[in-house]
């Protein structure tokens, strides 16, 4: 019996089956073609209203979602925490209920509190797409990363993928780990010992605190952004120390596999976690990730909005 899509929310890759992940990737492949033709739009979500509810600010992800929504012909509303009623003390739930009363169809939500979207999804009849909840989950980012890898290698199974950086605070890392493990990749997380906890071993991931060991056999290295707000909490001394020991430089590339892919969710801190030369080099697919992000988000919105909530 062929798999059909039945979810009206996308909260995390944790609960998806490998078949569902592949379903999204295949759907995204079709949506990628839409952005490559002259009329970059389809009427799929015509008449539907999508609210981009970003409690934690973001430009890139929001723009990507907004464009995806517009290319699906949806009507878009952007609500930011700084301008929303949350500042005036309204609870998150009340804010959502008020928006729901405007007969919107879908929430694309980003929040700094892990589990916030799961909480909201239980209390609204609208669909919820998670655009990031604290350090927990960022499913569309992981999907576009995996899509990019699959486009280049034709598969995920058996590939060696290293995620490099502040894993502890990264939702991108966690979502990638779940998605990659489900599709059969061998995953390594690497970075300073203060931000790469051993507990990841309990789910089948290799933990590494030495850059060379972490990347020398990798087919893909996904470099995470150093988030400066974390530096205040004394996890490692400085940008330059991080760059010295964990920065992905051309020298590091020399002892990696020649065809290895370099990825980064963006925005990049040039010459901190990644050298300009590497970010702009021929192994880098950073810009393709952005293109693929649009296709993946169109696919996710199409699927989630396409299903009635039971």
């Amino acid at each position, binding site marked *: 019996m062929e798999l059909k899509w039945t979810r009206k929310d996308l909260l995390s890759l944790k609960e998806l089956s490998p078949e569902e992940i592949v379903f999204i990737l295949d759907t995204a492949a079709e949506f990628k073609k839409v952005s490559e033709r002259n009329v970059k739009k389809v009427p799929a979500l015509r008449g539907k209203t999508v609210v981009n509810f970003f409690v934690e600010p973001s430009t890139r992800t929001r723009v990507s979602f907004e464009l995806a929504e517009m290319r699906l012909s949806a009507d878009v509303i952007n609500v930011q925490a700084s301008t929303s009623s949350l500042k005036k003390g309204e*609870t*998150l*739930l009340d804010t959502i209920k008020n928006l729901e009363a405007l007969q919107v169809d879908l929430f694309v939500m980003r*929040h*700094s*509190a*892990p*589990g*916030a979207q*799961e*909480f909201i999804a239980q209390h609204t009849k609208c669909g919820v797409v998670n655009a990031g*909840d*604290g*350090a*927990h*989950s960022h499913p569309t980012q992981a999907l576009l990363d995996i899509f990019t890898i699959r486009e280049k290698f034709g598969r995920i199974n058996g590939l060696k993928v290293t995620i490099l950086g502040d894993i*502890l605070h990264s*939702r991108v890392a*966690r979502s990638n780990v779940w998605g990659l493990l489900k599709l059969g990749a061998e995953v390594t997380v690497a970075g300073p010992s203060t931000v790469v*906890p051993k*507990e*990841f071993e*309990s*789910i089948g991931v290799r933990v590494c605190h030495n850059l060379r060991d972490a990347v020398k056999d990798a087919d893909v290295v996904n470099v995470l952004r150093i988030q400066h707000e974390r530096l205040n*909490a004394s996890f490692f001394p400085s940008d330059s120390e991080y760059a010295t020991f964990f920065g992905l430089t051309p020298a590091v590339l020399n002892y990696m596999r020649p065809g290895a892919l370099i990825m980064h969710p963006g925005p990049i801190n040039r010459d901190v976690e990644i050298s300009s030369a590497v970010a702009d080099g021929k192994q880098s697919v950073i810009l393709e990730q952005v293109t693929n992000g649009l296709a993946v988000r169109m696919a996710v919105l199409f699927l989630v909005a396409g299903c009635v909530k039971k």
Partner: protein
Amino acid sequence: MIEGINNFILRNAHVIDPYTNEDAIRDIGIMDGMLTDPEKVLNPLEIDLQGMVAAPGFIDVHVHLRQPGNTAAETIATGTKAAAAGGFTGIVPMPNTTPACDSASTIEYLRRHTAVDSVVRVYPCGCLTKNYAGEEMAPIGGLKNAGVMALSDDGRCVQNHDLMRHIVEYAKSFNLPVLDHCEDNFLKGPGTVHEGKWSILCGLEGMPSATEELMVERDIILARMADWKIHIQHISAKESVAAVRRARKEGVKITAEATPHHIALTDEKIYSYDTNYKMNPPLRTETDRQAIIDALADGTITIIATDHAPHTLTAKMVEFDVAPFGIIGLETAVPICLTELYHTGRLSLMQLISKFTLGPTELLNIADHSLTNGNPADITIFDPDFEYVIDKEKFYSKSRNTPFHGMKVKGKVFGTMVCGRLVFDDLAERRTK
């Protein structure tokens, strides 16, 4: 509650009394609020307690009544009714109210209101520091005169060891035990759950066990220095338990309490982001839970206390990060502990009952609490084998923030008697005369 009737004969009660080591089936006589020879009771109401246990009244040394300051969540009236329904004849309310119980006037307020609104005994507790801010010592002498029986900054922990040392020494001179909520603020950081596998998978900020362990060790040192009683509240980590065991062996005056939720639950529950699993100290691993149960069995932990922390529905119906810590516990403590400790064979009924009676009265210097004739009739009556499903809608508490709703348990409180009055009465079917 039956107004105006203080004379009872409780027939066929299985009396289990840790003060006298009595474990026998007999009748209990109550006249004018005091325990007496059943033959001597005039005009008694008779209740048949066949199959039920009668124990000295349970005391919960860690309860938040929220009055004054947060009466939306609980009041003295509803909180003490909840205590009675839970089988408790006495409670120690924590002083982190608004205003805090850091002066005689607030204690007087408490005593005035409990006299009118409370159905159980309330043993007042004062702060260690002004406004429990951890900076200046509270007027401990004045608090003692106003009637406090213990001191605590619960909710917070005095970080300045020099200040804490002076507080302990000063409290000793007034014979007041110090109850400490052990946590190091720096290690705690922005943590909301136990730092471990589950916090990492869920992307939540964790508090390592060392947060608690560090201050437990600090308290052991200060208790030894001052030769005075420091009581570790809601102990949660196996390292803290080991430290307390070691210190007690040495003769240091350290005691500890554990909550029913730390006895029954572990941190894998946070996976659902349900805020009914968010409390401080947090739920920890199975190894920690077993260490606590072992310590209850070997006497390292002498008290079970609920840390009953009411919050309104609105307050808890938010994102996990911003939800306040705490769950209610008065009405689930006895069934949960009977299910998890007695029916699993880890503790005998005598041992379990002592955690609610002997332990607390030793800490607070309460005398005459045993079921001996001549003592006030404070009695907890329960059926250790009665099976039922916990229904939070039936709670007397104003709040509903419990993780135990819908749980099947074995053991139920049927009656609570304070000074001869049945302040909780589920024994209507057992009236004989």
